[in-house]
C-alpha cells in the first residue's frame, strides 16, 4: 500500500494553534463516541433493571431524566478528558490538545471550567465558535472564558518520515 507524500507544509505545524477543520472533526468523533457510550450505558442499565426487577424499562428521548443523564454524561466525558489529559478521544485521533492560553499544560480546574462554559459557544447559532475561524489565535468563546487554546500536538515530523519511508518502500512506481 502506498500513499502519495503530502506536501511538507504541515510538518512544522506542531505546537501551532489548531484550525477549524481539525477541531470540528474531533468534535464530531467525540459526539459519536460519547453518544454511543451513553446509549450503550442506558441499554445496559435497562437490561440490568429488567433482569433484577422483571420490569422492562424504555428510555424515551423526551424524558427529562434521560436528558439530564445525557447532559451530565457529556459534561463528564468532556470535563474529565480535558482535566485529566487535555484531550478527548476525538482530539487524540486528530492530534490536537487543549493547553493554557500561554502554551503551558492545562490545569485540571481549567478543563472543568472549559466543559462548563462549552455550551455557551452553541448559543446564537454557534456564534461562539466563530472565533476559531476569525480570531488570530483560533480561540472560541469557551476558550477565551477558560483561558485555554487548542494546538496541534501530534508528531508531524515522525509522520512525515513514515510517509517518506512508505514511498521509498513502494518505489518510483508507487508514487
Amino acid at each position: 500500500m502506498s500513499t502519495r507524500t503530502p506536501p511538507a507544509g504541515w510538518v512544522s505545524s506542531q505546537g501551532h494553534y489548531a484550525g477549524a477543520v481539525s477541531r470540528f472533526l474531533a468534535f464530531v468523533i467525540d459526539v459519536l463516541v460519547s453518544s454511543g457510550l451513553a446509549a450503550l450505558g442506558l441499554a445496559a442499565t435497562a437490561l440490568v433493571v429488567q433482569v433484577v426487577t422483571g420490569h422492562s424499562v424504555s428510555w424515551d428521548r423526551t424524558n427529562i431524566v434521560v436528558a439530564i443523564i445525557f447532559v451530565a454524561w457529556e459534561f463528564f466525558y468532556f470535563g474529565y478528558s480535558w482535566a485529566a489529559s487535555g484531550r478527548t478521544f476525538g482530539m487524540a485521533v486528530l492530534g490536537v490538545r487543549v493547553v493554557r492560553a500561554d502554551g503551558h499544560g492545562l490545569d485540571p480546574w481549567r478543563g472543568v471550567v472549559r466543559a462548563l462554559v462549552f455550551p455557551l459557544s452553541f448559543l446564537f447559532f454557534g456564534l461562539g465558535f466563530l472565533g476559531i475561524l476569525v480570531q488570530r489565535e483560533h480561540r472560541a468563546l469557551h476558550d477565551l472564558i477558560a483561558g485555554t487554546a487548542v494546538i496541534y500536538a501530534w508528531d508531524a515530523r515522525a509522520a512525515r518520515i513514515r510517509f517518506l519511508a512508505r514511498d521509498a518502500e513502494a518505489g518510483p512506481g508507487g508514487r
Partner: protein
Amino acid sequence: MDPRERLLSAGKRLTDPAEALAQRIAERAVDLIVQALDINQLVQRVDLDAVLGQVDINTILRRVDVNALLAQVDVNALLAKVDVTVLLDRVEVNALLDRVNVDALLGRADVDALLQRVDVGALIDRVDVNDLIRRVDLDSLVQDTDLGAVIAKSSGGVASEALDAARSQAVGLDQFIDRWVGRAIRRRQAGPPAPAALLDGEAES
C-alpha cells in the same frame, strides 16, 4: 774482566753524568726561553686559517664517536636553555608542511593506537548534537537508504497510515481555510502561530 767491557764501563761512567748535565741545561734553557716568550704574541703571528686549511676536518670527525659524545650531553638542560617560541617564529611552517609527505606520514601512523588514546566521551560532549541533527537531510536519508524500508516495516500498519493521512489532510484544510478567511476579513497582520511558551521552545530547538 774483558778489556772491551772494561773500556765500555769506563765510557759509561763518563757519559752518564755528562748526559744528566746536558738534560738539566736543556730544561733550564727551555724554561728561560718559555719565560721570555710572549705566547699571545706568538699565537697572533700564526695564520690559523692557513693551518686549519691544511687540516682534513672530515677525517677528524670520522674518528669522533658522536654517540659517546652525545651520551655525555645533558639534553634536557640544553633544551631548557632554548627559547622555543623564538625558534618557532623563525620557522616558516607552511614551507615546512609543503615538504611533508602526509600520505607517507599517515602510513606510518598507528591509527588504532591513536584512537585508543582519544577520549570519545569528552569529544562528544563538545559536539552540538542538535545542530548536527538539524543538518541531516532526513528526506534524502529515508528515501535514499534502506532506513525507509526499516521505518515502514516498524511503524505500524494501516491504522497508523490512515491516522497520519487524516491528520495531515485536516491540517492542510485548516491552513487553506485560514488563508481564505484571512483574505475575506482582510486580516492585515497574521497572529502568532503558537502560544508564547511553545514559540520559545521552537526558537530554542
